[in-house]
């Protein structure tokens, strides 16, 4: 039976529920920017999110959980809005949930049957890209079915999970991983259990303090492997990019609010600093980045099949640097106190940087766009 679609009228009330959830359940454990929520607290919170229905569970009945019904514009709008809201409280947890939901979406569309433990909150995560960047233009050409021999060997290397290490940023609870692999000359999906993965823990990374980073690799004999279609890979990358952008936009909302509030209280130069043109300019640029993110995201709120990966890549290329700049400005508006870990903007800046580095980063996007060709 097809899952029920989300009615337009239900969208805002549902998002209000997410706001309530994030304020009452999430904010208390993430209040101190210098003290990341413990793994235990995140587990409990994730269980609450699962019970509440934000995190997907039973794959037969996805409900309105994140990325559960991406063919429905309202459901997609809900996922974007919810991630934005969650990230405005904590980007790390929002990313963990986004990747968990993405992995569940993938399992559903690929046909991996998840057992009960794999469906537990945070048990499953996904790595959407290869070991570095976006395989230059090769991934785009593969997706557009114009792959050359050179692309094949690039992709074979990019998705060589056996000999290359890939960084994984996830909550410590992760147990299973879905990722694209290059298997016997074709792009495939691998679902693999943590015990089958060679793992090197990394030192605490730049941001997203709630999560850890591991260098991971796994051989082809491990887990389940099935062939991947262009549409599956494209869908995953589209949803991943949407999630990253929504989280980045939510993080910026937080920074914008903090900067605005601080600027209206702090006095320097004989007046509150929001009265100085230098500060007004910074606040305006933060607002502008926010507006750009909203515009782009609302333009991208369409059923999944009507979204082009090229557009999403262009959006990432455009927005991540803008939102990083906004996070920098939020810190700058705060002056010295903004540089301190217990103030807030410092963490937002690190988190925003981390979002920019995810899923291949942004530097190779022009090559991807060019290789994709005209829409």
């Amino acid at each position, binding site marked *: 039976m097809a899952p029920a679609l989300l009615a337009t009228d239900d969208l805002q009330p549902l998002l209000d529920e997410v706001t309530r959830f994030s304020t009452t359940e999430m904010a208390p454990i993430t209040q101190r920017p210098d003290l990341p929520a413990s793994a235990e607290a995140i587990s409990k919170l994730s269980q609450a999110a699962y019970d509440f229905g934000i995190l997907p569970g039973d794959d037969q009945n996805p409900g309105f959980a994140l990325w559960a019904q991406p063919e429905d514009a309202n459901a997609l709008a809900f996922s974007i809005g919810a991630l934005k809201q969650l990230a405005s409280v904590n980007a790390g947890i929002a990313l963990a949930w986004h990747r968990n939901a993405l992995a569940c979406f993938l399992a559903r569309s690929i046909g991996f049957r998840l057992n009960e433990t794999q469906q537990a909150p945070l048990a499953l995560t996904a790595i959407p*890209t290869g070991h570095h960047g976006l395989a230059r233009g090769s991934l785009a050409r593969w997706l557009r079915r114009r792959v050359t021999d050179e692309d094949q060997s690039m992709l074979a290397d990019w998705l060589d999970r056996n000999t290359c290490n890939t960084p994984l940023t996830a909550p410590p609870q992760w147990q299973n991983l879905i990722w694209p692999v290059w298997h016997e000359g074709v792009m495939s999906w691998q679902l693999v259990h943590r015990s089958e993965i060679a793992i090197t823990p990394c*030192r605490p990374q730049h*941001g997203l303090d709630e999560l850890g980073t591991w260098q991971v690799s796994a051989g082809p004999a491990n887990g389940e492997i099935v062939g991947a279609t262009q549409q599956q890979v494209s869908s995953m990358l589209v949803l991943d990019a949407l999630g990253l952008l929504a989280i980045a936009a939510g993080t910026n909302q937080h920074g914008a609010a903090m900067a605005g509030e601080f600027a209206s209280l702090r006095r320097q*130069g004989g007046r509150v600093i929001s009265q100085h043109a230098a500060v007004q300019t910074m606040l305006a640029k933060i607002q502008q980045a926010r507006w750009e993110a909203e515009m782009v995201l609302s333009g991208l709120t369409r059923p999944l099949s009507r979204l082009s990966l090229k557009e999403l890549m262009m959006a990432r290329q455009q927005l991540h640097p803008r939102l990083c700049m906004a996070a*920098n400005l939020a810190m700058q508006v705060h002056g010295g106190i903004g540089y301190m*870990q217990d103030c807030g903007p410092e963490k937002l800046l690190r988190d925003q940087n981390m979002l920019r580095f995810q899923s291949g980063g942004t530097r190779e996007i022009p090559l991807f766009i060019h290789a994709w060709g005209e829409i």
Partner: protein
Amino acid sequence: MINRAMHLEGHLPADHRLAPHWQFAALPRIAQQITSYQRDDLWASDTRRLPAPLAQLRRRARTFAETYLAPLSAEADLAMHTVPGQHPPAITDMLKVAAREGWLSYFLPRPLGSMSWKRSLYPPVWQSSLVVEEFSRVCGGLMLLLSAHHLGCIPLLLSGDIKVIRRFLAPVYRSCHKGDPHLVAFAITEPGAGSDAEDGHGARDYKPGVVASRCQGGWKLNGRKCFISGGDMARTLTVFAALEGEGMESWTCFYVDAASPGFRVARNEMKMGMRASGAADLEFTEVFVPDSHVIGGLRKGWVLNRASLNTSRIPVASMAVGFARAATEQATTFACRYQLGGKALIHYQDVQQHIATMVAETRAIRSMVWQEARNAWKPRQLNASACKFHATNRAQIVVEMALDLLADQGGLQEQKIEKIFRDVRLTRIFEGTNQINQLSVIEDWQDQLLPLCSPSSAPIGV
């Protein structure tokens, strides 16, 4: 057969007949004198171009940084937030070596300081800029630990009072030479005055937070200073305070002994980067300072403060150069070693462009710093501030480019660039935010700008 080891993709090997390097060898001797196709290391050739005493200083600073700072850098950055003044023994040992080797006393020539007489022909700001770049390149935090001390000493020097120098600065330097690091901190910032402590227009309206009241034989200081680099380890501090009942025009520099009753390091801030150096919150409760410890005279603090900042802002710009350089070096090494699609990233044209831009950006800001530093016998506010805000803004862009090149690996601490980002970020905030430094340029320039507002005035030069 040509292999990748012999040339980068898109480029001919150096011995190819179309390679300029190959043709260069065939040029007449005179032509070879006026053109160059050397394969020198950029750092080495820049160093050679410096006057010999400064070249030697640059080489020594690099050796010291690589020998003593680099091994401590990651650990110092990752260390838990400590209570004020507590440092791992390795850092204390490093400070002792730095003190003995003269890295804490090079603003004055021998026998008072550690500056060689040959070096004294060149502005100390230039010398400091060279040293600071080398130290920042390996660790922002340890660099700050060593450099904030000089800022603390600068008001003593700039007082221009031989007695002050002999009585206060000389013992500091002497103690350092003996391997007993005596650190000095510079304290202007107060909870209510960050920018207002660096900008006259703001200071005009500020009600001073640290106030000196007259008492028998001296002054009693009360109030709080914040964000004071090295304030947790300093034995003495140059503290700026207003005289009781007066405004910021009365600012006076007091030389305060950290062992004085009533002085307390309340806490160290939890910083994003440069974590090896403490940014301390200092409390003054009836701290007695004898008259003899007033530096430069009563009500001479504001000018001393501003002159000190003019002296230190070019070295701050040089910190930024050190960070940009470190990021460029790390990213280039990554690009040469990281394999994608069967070859190192450096073989891809877009990667080459990316790195070339980082190199150019880094060298452009270094040129600016050296240009200003070489003439900084009397550092001018406009030049120092322009150099500070521009170099630090551009340096952060270089560091971000390095992170972008590493993409998914960018956030990993193991790759070292994320730490450089956290370090470089501070340079846009302290020593006056970059916004305040922009205003300082105009403040200094206004005597020329005001006449320009009249249509008949002579043109200005930039």
